[in-house]
């Protein structure tokens, strides 16, 4: 492992005065299903700008924890706070607007929609146009200079027409719908390029190869402009080369200023990319620290790692 991977994220984020801010606090969360305790008073937090790994053996409560954070389950007691605001009790779409987004362990794209549209659903969440706006297009905004219609024709009627359109847009503005539509498409395209699948932007999601689908999920989640991105086993079914690619992608996501929570089975992956690791076992937290500390923790070794050699 290179040094870069194992040192905490501190150098990468701008120095902050005082103690570092917790982006997400999980405060003594207890979750019961009938008589079964799924999460037993778990507390940890996620710092802004870090990559946090959440690991644990099967059935340890990782995905459950995830579902509490994203509003799928309501905890029996305790609270989840995002930048000081309670997440608990909010509906999934509200949580998404707060700035938490996620991918799904078993890929859940919109199969009949194109890759680009999948991402646009994400970017749409920052837009306002609803039925009246899309139908009547009466709500006008003053476009920025670069948003004005271009004049490309060299002459003739076409040029006159384009000039007319441009001056109309200058005087009366453009409909918010059109501007948002364009912004959504540009943003989505940029994200597809970012995750490296822009070459198949127009293909329906169900026709994409597996690796593309996983990346598309990430792009779609990034479309909602999250502060915190939760990845649920993003490397499942990947070969080592693909995993290596994914590591790079996760780091680049963090470099965009997005905090990443990573649930993962693959120890190597977690050790290689995370700044900090939280370990769950039977619904309780058993360790929380830097990867190298956690990998030396005897309880973690006993519970999860089996042999210490495996971790390093």
């Amino acid at each position: 492992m290179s040094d870069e991977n194992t040192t905490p994220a501190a150098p990468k984020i701008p120095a902050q005065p005082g103690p570092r801010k917790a982006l997400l606090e999980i405060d003594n969360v207890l979750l019961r299903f009938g008589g079964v305790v799924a999460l037993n008073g778990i507390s940890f937090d996620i710092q802004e700008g870090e990559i946090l790994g959440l690991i644990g053996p099967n059935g340890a409560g990782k995905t459950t924890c995830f579902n509490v954070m994203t509003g799928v389950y309501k905890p029996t007691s305790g609270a989840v706070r995002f930048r000081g605001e309670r997440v608990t009790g909010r509906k999934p779409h509200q949580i998404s607007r707060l700035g938490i987004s996620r991918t799904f362990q078993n890929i859940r794209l919109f199969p009949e929609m194109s890759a680009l549209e999948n991402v646009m659903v994400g970017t749409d969440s920052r837009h306002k146009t609803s039925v009246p706006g899309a139908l009547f297009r009466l709500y006008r905004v003053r476009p920025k200079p670069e948003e004005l219609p271009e004049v490309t024709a060299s002459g003739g009627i076409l040029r006159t027409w384009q000039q007319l359109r441009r001056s109309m847009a200058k005087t009366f503005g453009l409909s918010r719908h059109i501007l948002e539509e364009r912004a959504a498409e540009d943003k989505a395209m940029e994200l597809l390029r970012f995750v490296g699948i822009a070459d198949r932007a127009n293909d329906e999601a169900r026709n994409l190869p597996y690796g593309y689908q996983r990346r598309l999920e990430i792009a779609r989640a990034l479309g909602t402009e999250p502060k915190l991105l939760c990845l649920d086993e993003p490397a499942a079914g990947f070969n080592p080369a693909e995993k290596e690619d994914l590591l790079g992608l996760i780091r680049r996501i963090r470099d965009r200023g997005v905090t990443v929570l990573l649930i993962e089975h693959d120890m190597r992956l977690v050790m290689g990319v995370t700044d900090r690791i939280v370990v769950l076992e039977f619904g309780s937290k058993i360790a929380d620290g830097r990867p190298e500390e956690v990998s030396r923790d005897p309880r973690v070794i006993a519970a999860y790692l089996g042999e210490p050699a495996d971790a390093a």
Partner: protein
Amino acid sequence: MIDKIRDLDRSRVNALHSVADRWRALPKWQRGLGFVAFVVFLYYLPLLGIPGLTWLRTDSISGGSNWAGVLFTCAVYVLVAIGLNVVIGLAGLLDLGYIGFFAIGAYAVALFGSVNSPVVKWFQAEFDLPATWAVTWAVCAFIALVLALISGVILGWPTLRLRGDYLAIVTLGFGEIIRIVARNAEGVTRGPQGIAAIPGPEGPPSPDNQVFGLIDVKPWYWLAITVVLIMVFAVRRLEHSRVGRSWLAIREDEDAAAVMGVYPFKFKLWAFAIGAALGGFAGFLFASRYAFIDPTQFNVNLSILFVAMVVVGGSGNMVGVSVGAVLLAYLPERFREIADYRWLAFGLAMVLVMILRPQGLIPSRRRARELKDRAAEAEEAPAHV
């Protein structure tokens, strides 16, 4: 046998796809011209006299129905199909009570526009209005649209939280309730007697009407097809917007859509309301044209027919559902021998399409975005994964 059908179907779909691809490859102005030509043809249809095509006319058989009348019915059904497609095809909500909205639209113009209706009589008595007074047709159009929209919201608000199949059954019940209320509430709807003298654009039906009479149906068809074209344009705008994407996302995976920031309830309610408004407007046109309605015209079977139009043609794409609507409205009129068996045929068609080709007869592809930098993109396509 089934394999043979599948093979045939596949080659049919491929042929349609290649036609569609060739169409898309045409320059924009040619496509525009083609579209204008198609619209002109639609308006010309009731006069259809091109040699070689006249056999299409329903009055080319002995005792056949008025050709323009059949076209009018087709246009109304297309309007219904487009509205129901928003609900079923785009938002993925199975509405089995669509006839209820159709009936509300029809009764709106009947109750407010006809001197025959108890509601108008009540207004006349209450405000000392002359016995010929009734709400004008254009205002009735607005009332029909708004009433249907509101009833869509009222039905949708409590029920849209239900699971899909429960929603279907509840809407079925709703359609029946509307019909039974229309039949039983005699003080308001005149019950089984029905309401006559429903106005058209020129006022109540009378032999003096110049354009929208009872004999010549052509103007009615032209009116209906104009409404259809406007609605197609409007629904297309929605379909290719943030709203349309939200509907599709909800249809495909509601939970995932919610996590991506789509508020499913809000957009489902919009879909329901828009569908209801379109259905109501179709009912409004229907009632204006026939000038008479009674509760038996809003049988629940029609709801099933509407669903059949949408799913057989291809839910989710407007060409598909329109083709479905035209087929189901036109074929029994032109081929009288099969008219008796239309319900059997619809039932069989629904079953076969669901088992063999759930996406419907007309293949659809989401419109590919015309990406500015598509070519450049392909070149620099990274070798990831």
